[in-house]
């Protein structure tokens, strides 16, 4: 394919001036984009994580990493099996995922609605934008005692906290992208007699989608981080709860099991969002390719 292209190109524009070339000269110019990341290779996003695992394994095996610092991968695997069989690890993962997905869903919905309201109306902006910026600068950890007072120590406190944490990146990125939409599209929509609802659906939301998806990547990650915090409060289940207990009993291997689970979830979730991104934004021509 590439060779054929190069051959036809050579007929038209020889790479070397004819006076210096001894005869027909193959065109050796590179036909793909010279600047930019180059063509996409399959499964390339696994390379980094697998390399990290390899370093960890080799380090533990050779004794560079002492078990007191970081449990070796095979011991973590053993601990994982132990937790899975004897301590209902699957159930704990399920509980944590449910909290995180529920909170994330609420946060995403809330973030988008607030971003659109504040992005498209001055009243909305006056009411919404300030409080969101204030909320942004308050550490969530500092808010939890308040939430405990408001919502108790049950599930609603946990889900609400995660929803509020995830709302922020969704709001900020969606709002930013929305305000960045070319004003000429609004002008076009006006000349086409498009109503407000149709305008939001056809111009605002698709135009803000790149920002929303970036926000979603942040939100997915912080929804998992939020678990660690909320599950320290009166939990009977969940990965955060398991890790809190392990911390009290000094079980490093269990903590590492928890960390690995977090890492894997975060990585998978981010990969999923990026796949969505690539499909949903196929109308763009970017360096992503």
């Amino acid at each position, binding site marked *: 394919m590439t060779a054929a292209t190069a051959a036809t190109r050579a007929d038209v524009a020889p790479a070397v001036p004819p006076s210096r070339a001894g005869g027909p000269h193959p065109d050796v110019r590179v036909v793909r984009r010279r600047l930019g990341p180059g063509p996409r290779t399959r499964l390339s996003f696994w390379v980094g994580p697998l390399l990290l695992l390899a370093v960890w394994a080799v380090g533990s095996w050779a004794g560079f990493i002492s078990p007191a610092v970081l449990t070796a991968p095979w011991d973590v695997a053993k601990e994982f099996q132990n937790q899975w069989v004897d301590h209902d690890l699957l159930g704990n993962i399920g509980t944590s995922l449910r909290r995180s997905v529920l909170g994330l869903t609420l946060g995403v919905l809330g973030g988008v609605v607030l971003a659109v309201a504040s992005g498209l109306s001055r009243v909305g902006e006056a009411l919404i934008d300030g409080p969101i910026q204030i909320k942004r600068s308050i550490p969530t950890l500092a808010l939890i005692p308040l939430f405990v007072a408001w919502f108790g120590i049950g599930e609603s406190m946990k889900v609400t906290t995660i929803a509020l944490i995830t709302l922020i990146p969704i709001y900020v990125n969606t709002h930013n992208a929305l305000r960045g939409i070319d004003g*000429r*599209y609004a002008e*076009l929509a*006006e000349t086409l007699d498009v109503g407000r609802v149709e305008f939001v659906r*056809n111009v605002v939301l698709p135009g803000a*989608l790149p920002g929303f998806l970036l926000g979603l990547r942040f939100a997915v990650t912080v929804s998992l981080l939020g678990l660690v915090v909320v599950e320290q409060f009166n939990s009977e289940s969940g990965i955060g709860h398991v890790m809190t207990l392990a911390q009290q009993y000094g079980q490093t291997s269990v903590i590492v099991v928890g960390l690995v689970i977090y890492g894997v979830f975060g990585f998978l979730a981010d990969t999923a969002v990026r796949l969505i991104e690539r499909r949903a934004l196929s*109308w763009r021509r970017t360096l992503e390719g």
Partner: protein
Amino acid sequence: MATHPGGLTSTEAPAVRVRDLHRSFNRSGGVLEGLDLDVAPGEFVAVLGRSGTGKSTLLRALAGLDRDVDGYGEIEVPVAVSVVFQDSRLLPWKRLLDNVTFGLRAPDADERGRRALAEVGLAGRERAWPYELSGGEAQRASLARSLVREPQLLLADEPFGALDALTRIKMHELLRRLCEVHRPAVLLVTHDVDEAIVLADRIVVLDGGTVQTDVRVELTQRSPVAPGFGELRDFLLGRLGVQEHLGADFIAPGRRRATSATPS
């Protein structure tokens, strides 16, 4: 002051009626100062003028896109108005057919969109993304989007300004054909005198905030070698403040003068 050999010839109610239109962007002076203009139904009017004489301001006033501009005056336009911008202004996240039917509320919107795309020579490209189109194709799609609404008035703001010369000639033919079929009144803002003569039934030149010149184009042939083309061009260039010897040697280098090509 102004010459008015053109204007309305029938007693038919005009499609566009503008009276005493004032528009200004700052206190130092108005861009439009008491402009009057009538456009008959189905009439193709080209608006010429040096830069800053308010061509686009007039068009935006007719399109209802100048809510933030100071001014007053009387404007009557039809209900169905379409605008073609200099950039094609296709929504990058919509495929071509969805761009054409955007805002079209009709049960057969898709069918009409397909037909409009076929009319501008883009049949089969319904599912293309805007970034896949060339400049000429994008502008043709934007014409299709305007005409699918069956406008009574088509407002075009230098629609071919960003296209190369060859594409522009093709677009002229296309626009003329489309206007013959759909018969909208057209107001075409352009800085290209030849384009105005080739396309329009009537040409107005703006200066000093009003219509200074208003001429009817009565050529048997719409080509630069047609009898009378060169005289009309020289006349319009003169009205635009371009001197005749400049018109011959500077504006159109290498182009045969229409007058010398057709000895009478």
